[in-house]
């Protein structure tokens, strides 16, 4: 066969139809691969629920637990039945989103999640946008001026960034930045503001109803918590971008591109950056995990009423129905986001699909 030229990574498949089918097949395969994981996860969560202090019924009833109530709840939950039946009942309830009522608010946990989710999505996406918008250029600059003073400062900042406890950083921003910058440090909305809530996405609602003061207010409330939440993903994205750009710069195809006389600009933009960003996409998915954990701390500090706030309150009040649903939900979101990233990776980089 002799010597085969490697395909350039951004080469496109010739026919669009084939490509669409390829992506679809890839998507279905990835979805199917997630099922065993989710099943094992459900078994673990079921085991977790069974080992809660005092047993699940006592944990779910909280302060209201009396022997009679526990016995009757045990019966309703089917805890007097064989364990395998119990697991399938649990699975059935989890699939239909029935996690019981929160001990704190007495509302169904699922409807709580529905109400609070938009706040966390807004905060998480803002933080991720900040991390990407700052992290990728910073990492690229760091790589271009490798071992120079700029590079050293950026690396040091990324190392410090992951060493600062997130909740402490949040308090520091509240204390030192909120007043000088004139930014609110608590909650999602100014007290007197009469904003219409449709979707609970504060910015989206404002845009839909053309209440521009509400949009501005929502953005101002997002700035500090989003920056606090963004630090760790920002540090990680910066370092991954730097490492990956450095890797790509040493590749043969960069030397080829340079020696065939392409301008530095074209080489950097089309060859270095494009290939260097592939690992960064993956990192963005993985950092969702850090975001979910960080949101618990950030939302607590800023009284930003989202899922993290709900979880922190649930821990303080030992609200097990809420904890159970939120932990399962968090793991689910993490798995799904990573799957999405994986799929997008397959779309960006054709090599992944054919493997």
């Amino acid at each position, binding site marked *: 066969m002799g010597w085969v030229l490697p395909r350039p990574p951004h080469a496109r498949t010739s026919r669009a139809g084939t490509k669409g089918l390829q992506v679809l097949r890839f998507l279905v395969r990835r979805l199917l691969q997630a099922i065993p994981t989710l099943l094992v996860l459900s078994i673990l969560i079921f085991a977790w629920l069974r080992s809660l202090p005092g047993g699940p019924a006592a944990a779910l009833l909280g302060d209201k637990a009396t022997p009679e109530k526990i016995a009757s709840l045990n019966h309703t939950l089917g805890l007097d039945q064989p364990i395998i039946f119990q697991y399938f009942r649990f699975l059935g309830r989890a699939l239909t989103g029935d996690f019981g009522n929160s001990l704190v608010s007495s509302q169904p946990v699922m409807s709580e999640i529905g109400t609070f989710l938009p706040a966390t999505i807004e905060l998480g996406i803002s933080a991720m946008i900040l991390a990407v918008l700052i992290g990728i250029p910073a990492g690229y600059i760091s790589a271009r001026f490798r071992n120079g003073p700029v590079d050293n400062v950026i690396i040091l900042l990324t190392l410090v960034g992951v060493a600062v406890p997130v909740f402490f950083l949040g308090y520091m921003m509240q204390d030192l930045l909120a007043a000088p910058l004139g930014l609110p440090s608590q909650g999602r909305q100014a007290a007197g503001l009469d904003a219409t809530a449709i979707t609970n996405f504060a910015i989206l609602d404002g845009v839909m109803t053309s209440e521009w003061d509400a949009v501005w207010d929502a953005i101002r409330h997002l700035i500090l918590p989003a920056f606090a939440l963004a630090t760790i993903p920002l540090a990680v994205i910066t370092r991954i971008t730097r490492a990956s750009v450095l890797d790509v710069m040493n590749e043969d195809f960069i030397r080829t591109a340079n020696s065939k006389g392409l301008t530095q600009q074209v080489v950097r933009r089309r060859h270095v950056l494009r290939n260097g960003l592939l690992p960064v996409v*993956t990192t963005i998915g993985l950092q969702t995990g850090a975001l*979910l954990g960080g949101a618990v701390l950030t939302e607590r500090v800023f009284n930003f009423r989202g899922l993290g706030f709900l979880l922190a309150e649930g821990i303080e009040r030992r609200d097990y129905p809420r*904890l159970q649903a939120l932990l399962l939900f968090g793991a689910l979101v993490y798995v799904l986001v990573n799957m999405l990233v994986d799929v997008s990776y397959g779309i960006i980089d054709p090599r992944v699909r054919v493997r």
Partner: protein
Amino acid sequence: MNTLLNKKKEPIDKLAAAAVGKSLGREALSRMLRSPVAITGGVITGLFVLLAIFAPLIAPKDPFARTLQGEVNLGRGIIPGAQPGFPLGVDDFGRDELSRLLVGAQNTLLVGVLATVIGVAIGIVIGGLAGAFGGWVDTVLMRLVDVMLSVPSLLLAISVAALFAKPSQWTVIIAVSMVGVPIFARLLRGSMLVQRNSDHVLAATSLGVKRGAIVFRHMLPNSLGPVIVQATLTLATAILEAAALSFLGLGDPDPNRAEWGIMLSKGAKQFLDVRPELAYYPAIAIIVVALGFTLLGESLREALDPKNRR
């Protein structure tokens, strides 16, 4: 699970494959001694460990004695600051802050080290079994590990900590250690799989060495390099995660316990308006120590990376 979490595994597996080889250890050491990053990390870590060990001897005052309690008035927002005999002032119970920080170093190191050691130990058992036996044992154990990896680390720690009716220092240590388990398990399995097919294992097998001896004398010792790198990095995250658990109310509620994470979360939550130093001191201590472990771990990783060999 083969979806994106593969990407979480990849760096672990890469690290596992990286540090297999013999003279690498000595070469890595000499490279570390020339690197300013490694030396900085080493000095910080060394000082911290020394401080922690000798804390009870160095501490100028009894860290539990509520000497100046009479001068503390939380209602009026008064916590006495620095004064003769109390160079860093006192905490909300009128106890010497400097002595508490010093003794706190000991407890912080204890939490970090124990959480890491437990994580490494369980991880080594799981990863070692998977790597030594392969086949269905490997499949079952790794599926479990992958699911643990698929839960965001702080959420995993929270769910473990919530299993205990009463929080204590031990529940924090166990919860934090669980975060490391899947990472160490994958790491060890990865480097053991690389070695199963290596020449020195083949040689030992053909010489008739028993399987157990091969695993314990040949494969395991040669797989420990990446585990040590990861453990150094885990020491930093363990201290940070323990602080986060304290902040969320899952930490040790004993008011006598002096540990930086507990001191920080209490200071940041309650006394930022009264005496912010009560948050600043432990925060600076945690940041410096976490940075020290990270510098040390990163330079170890770089030194062990065969790509950097000349």
